[in-house]
């Protein structure tokens, strides 16, 4: 079992539905406009927007960036207290109550996908009623990041175990995958060669973010195709 994700950049239109869904699913606080300006926005997935060309021939490129769940994750060895480690399903997991907030992992991450709780954040009523009871709320001073919606993975596993079967392909969908209107994201087991995610990861368009660093990410991107139908 090796959970992974494929993101088809040709389908992504930068609508940020995944960002909103992730925020709702994982109880990610909003930090307010002032802290946002200071560069403290918290999100486990962000849409990076890059422009190509000069006006008027400008093209915007969108790229959702989340924790790449690297097989050789640079964040893992540097944590002095094992708050972040690799679990047996290939997930790069974060144990909140072990974290003492050295933020070394966040510095070591070449993708800058880790967020830190600068303050204790609160949800004003009635927003507090929409908190997801299956996800821990984090207190000030700890690092957090994308978990591939580990709560959904666990639930699917429990359900499958009850019914004495293996988890089916497509049964687990992280919030971002579920909410993508363009169906740009696919999630599943990379070790199962028949799964959708494994099949798509073998596409000629597949690439990994900063593959040359040797981090072996488990998020695989598919290159966008331009309108003439040739690969760029």
């Amino acid at each position, binding site marked *: 079992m090796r959970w992974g994700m494929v993101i088809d950049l040709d389908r992504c239109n930068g609508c940020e539905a995944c960002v909103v869904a992730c925020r709702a699913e994982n109880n990610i606080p909003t930090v307010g406009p002032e802290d946002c300006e200071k*560069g*403290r926005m918290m999100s486990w997935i962000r849409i990076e927007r890059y422009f190509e060309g000069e006006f008027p021939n400008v093209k915007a490129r969108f790229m959702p960036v989340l924790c790449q769940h690297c097989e050789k994750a640079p964040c893992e*060895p540097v*944590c002095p207290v094992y708050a972040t480690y690799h679990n047996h399903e290939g997930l790069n997991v974060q144990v909140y109550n072990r974290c003492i*907030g050295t933020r070394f992992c966040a510095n070591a991450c070449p993708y800058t996908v880790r967020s830190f709780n600068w303050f204790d954040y609160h949800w004003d009523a009635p927003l507090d009623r929409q908190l997801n009871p299956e996800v821990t709320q984090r207190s000030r*001073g700890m690092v957090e990041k994308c978990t591939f919606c580990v709560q959904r993975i666990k639930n699917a596993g429990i359900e499958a175990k009850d019914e004495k079967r293996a988890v089916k392909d497509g049964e687990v969908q992280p919030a971002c995958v579920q909410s993508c209107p363009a169906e740009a994201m696919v999630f599943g087991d990379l070790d199962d060669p028949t799964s959708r995610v494994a099949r798509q990861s073998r596409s000629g368009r597949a690439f990994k973010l900063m593959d040359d660093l040797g981090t072996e990410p488990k998020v695989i991107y598919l290159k966008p195709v331009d309108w003439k139908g040739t690969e760029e």
Partner: protein
Amino acid sequence: MSAAAPSVETLSSSRVTEDLLRPIVETTWRFWAAISVLGTIMAWAMFCWGYQIVEGLGVTGYNRTSMWGSYETNFVFWVGISHAGTLISAILRVTGASWRRPITRAAEAITVFALMIGPMFVMIHLGRVWLFYWVIPFPNLRDLWPNFRSPLLWDFTCINSYLLGSITYLYLPMIPDIAAVRDAAGTRLAPWRRWIYRLLAMGWEGTPRQWALLERAISIMCVIIMPLAVSVHTVVSWVFSMTMNPMWHSTIFGPYFVVGAIFSGIAAVLVALFVIRKLLNLEAYIRPEHFDKLGLLLITFCLLWGYFTFAEHLTVWYNKEVSETAVLLGRLSGPMAPLFWTMITCCLLIPLPLLILKRTPFGTLVASLSVLVGMWLERYIIVVGTLTRPRMQFVWHSYTPSWVELSIMAGSFAYFAFLYLMFAKFFPIVSIWEFKEGQRQ
């Protein structure tokens, strides 16, 4: 007030004891004034830290990319300062340089106090400082050891060993002097202070056997402390260079940091010597020749540091790797440029000509202060320069320290001055027995 400094040979033995014990038995208003000023700054810094613990690290200027900043800069800076004292003293002792005698203790005390302050910043920078003891390897309820692969844990281990070693190394040569205070000060001191000296002197009588044991212990500590000192700043540099971040991941960081540490450490020793010489009227003991010789040492490390800095930047510039170049350009002509060129000015352009031409006490003081500023900036540029320009260009963000950070930094300087002052108040800052030994030779 001592008159024009007499030569070393003409100082009588009782005069030396009297001179060097004077700061201990006499307390002037200047002492209380200094304590009040330093105490106020420290209290304010403590308040700021408390505020940060209660509110969260958001009271700093940190953000998503600059997860580290001034606290880590101060950590590296102070650990760097700690490098001169013990190392200089140990090397000079081992090589038998006899001019070292009046300055070794003043230098060693710097090491111990800077080493107490540096790691404090590791605590201050923690998000959940109340759980700091989780990095201590002890069998706990969770049956979980700390992660020995983490450079932070190596740091923790190294710095603690170095601190213990430095305290021992400072304490050993102090034993005969503490006994001297115990014997000479007599009723001029309050009973509780006499009790402390009796305790710390550990029954020193000055028998030949005791002297032989002491000399042996000091020689052993000299040899132990040198590799420890080198390892400490190497490991501090590895906190950065073990990551794959642009311009952190550098093979020369170990020696570069050690050289920088000794460079700034010698500057700190020179500043401290200048201050205590003036404040405690020690002109007869800490002489221009000490400033001259330490100034020469400072030149050496100035050149070494310059060479390392050149090598570090040239190789990055030449190979044009994208992410590294982004950080480099940030330093040379980007947002870090004003600080970078100030650093070059303070670390090379000011001290080098000054030290070559004018190694008087005042000349070396100016050069040393300039080096200290420059070396603080060097650490800041390394920490912040890289973090504000991570590989993912989309998240690039600037960083400015907040008032909380600056207050705590000011507090650390006040704390250092306070500890040093208290040390000079309680113990002879110039080693009496070593000075007399030098006179006899």
